[in-house]
C-alpha cells in the first residue's frame, strides 16, 4: 500500500513537471553565424528570456559556406527552425516566393527601419518585407598602428598615397604590406573589388545604372577597379595564391602584415587576437577631395518560417529584434555589425566607431552584384570572385575580365542585352 502511494505521488509529480515544462515555448533560430554562438547564448537570449518569460530561444548555427544549402534542405524537409536568419536579396527572396518565409510588413517594429535598410529583404516592387533587418557591414582597410608608427607612415587618403605607403612597407621589408590570399577567392571580390570599387562607379549611381542597363561591365568605371587590383599582387605575401582566408587573418593579427583589406565583421575577432593597436582607413579616392563612397552592405536579417508551429512566440521575438534594446546589445556585443535601425546606437569600440563614422563623411552603397544581378546562370557574384582573383594574379587583363563578365550577364539579363 505504502509503495503504491509513493508510486502514485511520483507519477503525479512527473505529470505536473511535464505540464509546467510544456507551458514554455521553445523557438529555434537557424543561422550561419556560428562565430556568434557565445554572444547569443550569453547576452541576447538571456536578455530576451528575462523580458519574455515562457519563451525559450535556441540558437542553432551551421557553417557559413554550407548555410544556404543546409537551410534549403531543412526547409524542404520541414525540419527547419522557427526563425530563419536571412541572407540579403535573392537567397531570401526565393525563400519568400517559395512560401517558406512569412510577410512581416505589418510588424510594428518595421517602422524603426529606413527603406534602404529594408530593401535587401523586400519583393522587387517593395510591397512585402519578409525579414527584420539586423545589421550591415562596412568595408575598408584595417591597419597595424604600431607598424605605421614604426615606419613613420601616414594613413593614405588617395590612391597614390595608398600605393606609396605599400611601397614604403615593402621597401622596409619588416612587414608584409597587405594580408590577402586568393585561395578562397571570395576575399578578392568582397574585400578587393567591392571594397575599392564604389569610388570608381560612384556608389548607388553606378550600381543602379548597371541594374537598369544604362552602364555596362565593360565601362571604364567597372573595369578600372580590376586594373587597380592587378597592382595589389606585388604587395601580397609570398605564395598568396595558396593563402586562405584564415591564413590572412592570422598573418595580420600576429603582426606580420601591416594592412588588411577588411570587412567590419572582423573587428571582434581581431580585438581578441591582435596584441597591437589597430586603426582603419576607408577605401582611397582617386584625387584628394573627391566624394568618397563606402560599401555599407545590408548583410543580415531575421525572418519567420512559414511552417513554424510557434508563430506567436516567434513574432514576439521579431518585435524585440526591431527594438532599441536589441540594437544596442547587438551592435555593441558585435562591434562591426552596425545596426540598420533608425536608433542612434552609441559604439563603445573605437575601431567600430571609426568604421561607422564614415557613414557621415561618405556616400553609402551596397555590393554591386547582390541585387537582381546574381539571379541567373552564370552567377555574376561567383564570376566576380574568379575575375578578381584573375586580376590580382594577372592571368587576364582588366578589359578581358570586363568583357567576360558582361557577356555572362547579358546572356540572361534582359536590360543588358
Amino acid at each position, binding site marked *: 500500500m505504502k509503495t503504491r502511494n509513493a508510486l502514485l505521488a511520483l507519477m503525479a509529480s512527473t505529470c505536473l513537471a511535464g505540464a509546467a515544462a510544456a507551458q514554455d515555448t521553445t523557438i529555434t533560430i537557424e543561422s550561419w553565424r556560428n562565430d556568434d554562438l557565445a554572444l547569443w547564448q550569453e547576452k541576447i537570449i538571456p536578455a530576451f528570456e528575462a523580458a519574455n518569460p515562457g519563451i525559450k530561444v535556441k540558437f542553432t548555427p551551421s557553417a557559413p559556406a554550407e548555410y*544556404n544549402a543546409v537551410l534549403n534542405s531543412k526547409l524542404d524537409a520541414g525540419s527547419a527552425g522557427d526563425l530563419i536568419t536571412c541572407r540579403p536579396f535573392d537567397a531570401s527572396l526565393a525563400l519568400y516566393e517559395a512560401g517558406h518565409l512569412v510577410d512581416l510588413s505589418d510588424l510594428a517594429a518595421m517602422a524603426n527601419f529606413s527603406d534602404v535598410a529594408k530593401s535587401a529583404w523586400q519583393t522587387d516592387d517593395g510591397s512585402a518585407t519578409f525579414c527584420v533587418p539586423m545589421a550591415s557591414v562596412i568595408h575598408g582597410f584595417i591597419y597595424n598602428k604600431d607598424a605605421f608608427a614604426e615606419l613613420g607612415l601616414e594613413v593614405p587618403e588617395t590612391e597614390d598615397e595608398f600605393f606609396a605607403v605599400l611601397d614604403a612597407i615593402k621597401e622596409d621589408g619588416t612587414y608584409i604590406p597587405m594580408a590577402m590570399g586568393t585561395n578562397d577567392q571570395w576575399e578578392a571580390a568582397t574585400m578587393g573589388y567591392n571594397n575599392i570599387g564604389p569610388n570608381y562607379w560612384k556608389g548607388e549611381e553606378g550600381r543602379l545604372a548597371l541594374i537598369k542597363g544604362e552602364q555596362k561591365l565593360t565601362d571604364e568605371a567597372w573595369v578600372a577597379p580590376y586594373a587597380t587590383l592587378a597592382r595589389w599582387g606585388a604587395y601580397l605575401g609570398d*605564395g598568396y595564391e*595558396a593563402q586562405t582566408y584564415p591564413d590572412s587573418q592570422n598573418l595580420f593579427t600576429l603582426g606580420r602584415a601591416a594592412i588588411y583589406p577588411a570587412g567590419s565583421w572582423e573587428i571582434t575577432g581581431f580585438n581578441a587576437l591582435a596584441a597591437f593597436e589597430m586603426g582603419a582607413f576607408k577605401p582611397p579616392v582617386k584625387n584628394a577631395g573627391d566624394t568618397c563612397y563606402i560599401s555599407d552592405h545590408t548583410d543580415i536579417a531575421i525572418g519567420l518560417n512559414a511552417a513554424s508551429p510557434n508563430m506567436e512566440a516567434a513574432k514576439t521575438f521579431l518585435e524585440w529584434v526591431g527594438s532599441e534594446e536589441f540594437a544596442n546589445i547587438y551592435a555593441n556585443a558585435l562591434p562591426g555589425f552596425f545596426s540598420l535601425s533608425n536608433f542612434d546606437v552609441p559604439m563603445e569600440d573605437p575601431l567600430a566607431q571609426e568604421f561607422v563614422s564614415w557613414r557621415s563623411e561618405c556616400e553609402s552603397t551596397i555590393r554591386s552584384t547582390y541585387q537582381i544581378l546574381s539571379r541567373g*546562370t552564370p552567377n555574376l557574384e561567383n564570376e566576380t570572385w*574568379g575575375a578578381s*582573383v584573375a586580376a590580382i594574379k594577372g592571368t587576364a587583363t582588366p578589359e578581358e575580365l570586363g568583357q567576360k563578365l558582361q557577356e555572362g550577364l547579358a546572356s540572361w539579363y534582359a536590360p543588358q542585352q
Partner: protein
Amino acid sequence: MPRIRWHIVVFLAPAVLVYTAVMIFPLFNTLRLALYSEVDQARVFVGLQNFRTLFGDPIWSEAFWNALGNNFWFFLIHMLVQNPIGIALAAILSHPRLRFAALYRSAIFIPTILSFVIVGFAWKLILSPIWGIAPSMLDAVGLKSLFAPWLGKEEYALTTLALISVWQFVGIPMMLIYAALLSIPEEILEAGEIDGITGMAAFWKIKLPLILPSIGIISILTFVGNFNAFDLIYAAQGALAGPDFSTDILGTFMYRTFFGFQLQLGDPHMGSAIAGAMFAIILVGVCIYLFGIQTRLRRYQL
C-alpha cells in the same frame, strides 16, 4: 510444386530492403528528377531539356567538359602513379627476406582509413606557403626555389590534389596485390627457378601474369572511385574548386549546381542531370571493362 525456402527470403530481406531504400530508390529518383524543371514554383516535366542545356548551352557545356577533363586527368594520375607504386610496394613487401614488413604494411595502409577532411586539411597545412613544413624542408636541402604555392596555381592544383589522393589510397592496391602475390604457390616459383627464372624475371614472367586479374579489378575500382570523387576537392578547395575551376570535377560541379553556392541558388533538376551524366559515364566505363577487358584476361589455374 517446389517448396518456398522462407529462410532465404527472411535472411535476404534486411539487406535488400536497406539497399533499396538508401541506394536503388534514390538512384532512380535522381534520374527521374533530371527530367523535370521548376517553372513558377511548380515542377514540370521537360523531358531531356536539362541534358540539352547541359551539353548545348555554351556556359553549361564548358563547365561540364572542364569538369570531365579534370576528372580524366585525376584518373590518369591514379592509374599512372597510384597503381604502379601499389604493385611495386606489394612486390617488395612479399619478399621473404624483408624485415619489418608488417610495420611498413600498416604504415602505408593507415592513411586509407583517415577521413578526407583530415587528409585535405593536413596537406593544406603541409603545403601552405606561410606555415607549412614543405617550404622549410625544401629549404633545408637547398631546393627552396622548387617550392611554389601548388594548391593556388591553376597549372599545378589538380595534379597536387591527385597526388595527395594517391598518397591516401596507395594502400588499397598494395593490399589487394599483396594478397594475390601471397596466394601464388611456392612450387610454381621453384619450378621456374629450376628453369633458370629468378629475381626480376620471376616477377615479370610468373607473378605479374598471375596477378593481372587483380590489377584489372583495381583499375575498375580506381575508375569508379575517381569519377565519384568529391570529398577531397571540397575539403581542400571548397565548392568553387579554385583556382578558376582548375580542380573542378564532376562531383563538385554537381554539388554546386544541386545545392547552390553563395548567391547562386540550388537547382536540383540541373544537378540531377549532371548526376545522371556521371552515372552514365561510370556505367559505360564499367561495361567496357567487364565485356571488353575482363572476358579477355587469361586466367591460370593455380
